[in-house]
């Protein structure tokens, strides 16, 4: 992760606090604030299609952020993240449907309940490492999915469950244009929370475990506590994201959240950059936009000369899946440090432009 420093010469740090600010310079802080303000106007400027993509990026980025705490900051692994996502979705739908709790409160509550479930499934993590942990989290994936397909009272069983639209004090958010702001708020708050978490004692403990668990233990870090906590945190953000997804779709189905979705969450973290908070957002955007762009290309190819020459017809759909796989492999080969690393290089390039080297 060692990249060229972006701190201008003459900018000295005299306290530890100054060394751990969220934004290294005033300009970067202002740029981030301006960016958020600018994206607030997205519902006015973008078509519904693009808005739905932005909302998807927002929701999945929160879930991927949770996974990055686990994978990127604590050095654990989970291939059951999608099950926690779905658990949050069903929980929020269930709470807001059956109890007199408005959706506004159901979402954070679903996050908390999912975190508790995550803590339970995190217990083996305290003892297991590497491949063994992978299999343990795989079990979580299957146990939860099986639970959803059987627990009629909770998830509606095999049939999709319905979720209420997002409402606050009687005001109901209808349509993507309004829901966009709900997701944006959660996204900004989540990213700020995690950025701050990593500046605290607990956050540094997680990183210490990742870098060398034995040294961390010798220094007095309680491995069991922090490893389990990390699972809880990951599940918390997965639950929040799932709840947001439930009230966005208004329907929760246990389809499409199997192991392949868990792997996609991992892909988001890896492509974005493990251990990079902004990288998570970039990785999510990349992974969400990839199938969409493939869709555009396959739509463009349909009926064209290439299509006819190779008689692709309906196989274009499968070609899309293959292309996604290929691009992810290429990414791992040529950009192993993720998009965050590439972004830093681009910034450095322009910082020194035209006098680099």
């Amino acid at each position, binding site marked *: 992760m060692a990249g060229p420093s972006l701190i201008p010469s003459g900018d000295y740090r005299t306290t530890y606090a100054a060394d751990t600010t969220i934004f290294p310079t005033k300009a970067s802080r202002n740029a981030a604030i301006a960016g958020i303000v600018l994206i607030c106007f997205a519902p006015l400027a973008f*078509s*519904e*299609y693009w808005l*739905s993509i932005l909302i998807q990026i927002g929701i999945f980025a929160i879930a991927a952020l949770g996974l990055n705490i686990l994978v990127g900051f604590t050095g654990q692994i989970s291939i059951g993240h999608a099950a926690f996502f779905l658990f949050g979705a069903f929980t929020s739908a269930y709470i807001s449907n059956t109890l007199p709790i408005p959706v506004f409160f159901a979402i954070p509550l679903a996050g908390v309940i999912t975190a508790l479930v995550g803590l339970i499934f995190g217990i083996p993590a305290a003892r297991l490492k590497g491949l063994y942990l992978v299999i343990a989290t795989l079990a979580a994936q299957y146990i939860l999915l099986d639970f959803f*397909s*059987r627990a009629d009272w909770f998830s509606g*069983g*095999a*049939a*999709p469950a*319905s979720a209420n639209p997002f409402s606050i004090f009687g005001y109901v958010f209808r349509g*993507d244009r309004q829901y966009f702001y709900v997701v944006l708020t959660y996204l900004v708050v989540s990213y700020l929370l995690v950025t701050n978490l990593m500046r605290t004692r607990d956050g540094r403990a997680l990183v210490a475990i990742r870098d060398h668990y034995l040294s961390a233990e010798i220094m007095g870090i309680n491995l069991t506590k922090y490893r389990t906590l990390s699972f809880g945190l990951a599940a918390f953000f997965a639950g929040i994201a799932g709840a947001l997804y439930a009230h966005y*779709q*208004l*329907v929760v*189905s246990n*389809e*499409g959240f199997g192991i392949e979705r868990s792997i996609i969450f991992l892909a988001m973290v890896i492509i974005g950059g493990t251990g990079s908070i902004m990288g998570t957002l970039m990785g999510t955007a990349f992974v969400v936009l990839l199938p969409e*762009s493939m869709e*555009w*290309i396959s*739509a*463009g190819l349909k009926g064209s000369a290439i299509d006819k020459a190779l008689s692709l017809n*309906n196989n274009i*759909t*499968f070609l899309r*899946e293959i292309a996604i796989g290929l691009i992810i492999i290429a990414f791992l080969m040529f950009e192993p440090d993720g998009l965050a690393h590439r972004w830093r290089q*681009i910034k450095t390039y322009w910082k020194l432009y035209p006098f680099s080297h």
Partner: protein
Amino acid sequence: MTMKSLLGTVSLALLLGGAATAAQAQIAIGHLEDLSGGTSDVGTPYGQGVADTFAWVNKNGGIGGKQLNVDSNDYGYQVPRAIALYKKWSGADKVAAIMGWGTADTEALTGFLAQDKIPDISGSYAAALTDPEGTSGKAKPAPYNFFYGPSYSDAMRAMLTWAAEDWKAKGKPGKPKFVHMGANHPYPNAPKAAGEAIAADLGFEVLPPLVFALTPGDYSAQCLSLKSSGANYAYLGNTAASNISVLKACKTAGVDVQFMGNVWGMDENAAKTAGDAADGVIFPLRTAVAWGGDAPGMKTVMEISKMSDPTGNVYRPVHYIAAVCSALYLKEAIDWAVKNGGATGENVAKGFYQKANWVPAGMEGVCNPSTWTEKDHRPTMKVDLYRSKISGPTDGDLNDLVKKGTIKLEKVKTIELPRKPEWFGW
């Protein structure tokens, strides 16, 4: 970066291109198809049938001089992807109707369809979609859901009625045993309660259901339980590809049971793949004839088929013809809407109510006469039961196999169910 900017340019060009075509077309239709998911075996011919039919309508001048702009999308049988597409179709450029597909996604959309007033002609025939006002008390109101053919539950009732007679005719002693088989998924589950209820009424012993997945796999274990349970009649609730796995495994295990397939559970392709394992399976046929059958409307179906197969040599399975019927019913409903205030979803739904016992023009003798009313969306109560007959090795071209009679769909019985109020909505 260059890759990204390239993608950006391509996508922008496509978006602009898409916008240009949308401006010319006048009646938008959303089309959900499953070409890659759990039901793609039957979803592919059905999707092709829908696409061909609308292409054929457009070639012949569209509807009321307006071309149809059909947005076909493979959603891989996944509810979230169907919802995402629905959002697109119910947004700014609202579609006049949707040609839908699966039970899970159609039932998930039912409430939205009613709210946005968009009719959905689904490939799901779940009985829960037949109650437009929710008066049955067994299903939520589904005022904008339509489908062509007998509901899954009614098809099941008809098959069990036949099975009870068959048991008597064979003069076997004791109570026949019935078992429901299928994935734990809304589609195979849809007629489960109705089937088990009527089975009990008809004097069957109802065995605990057996579960097997929607995708093909090794179902030897299910066949062994089937054998040890001593079942006489088994309902196969999944689609053809997955049912074939069961048929083959049960053939190997030497299970002596009469299989009864769902409308999507058997077709000529499946019979060819399963070979002699598919011999004797009973299933309902939604159209009066199969491909190449002797009916005036078959000429139209052949014309439509040429839209994607100019040679005219491709054999179209039963699902293709059912798709043509479904799409043409919608076409006539839109036709009525265009003449009576414009092709809005609300008018298109009304278009379905204008005639009773009707067949789309040009489809005489192919589509079975259907009726939809404001109070009852069960299009038909008549169920034609067929048996697949396999009389030899099924290698080679499907066209030849059917011509030679190696694969034959043999009519068994037509069951006319009463339109009982207690059978409504489930």
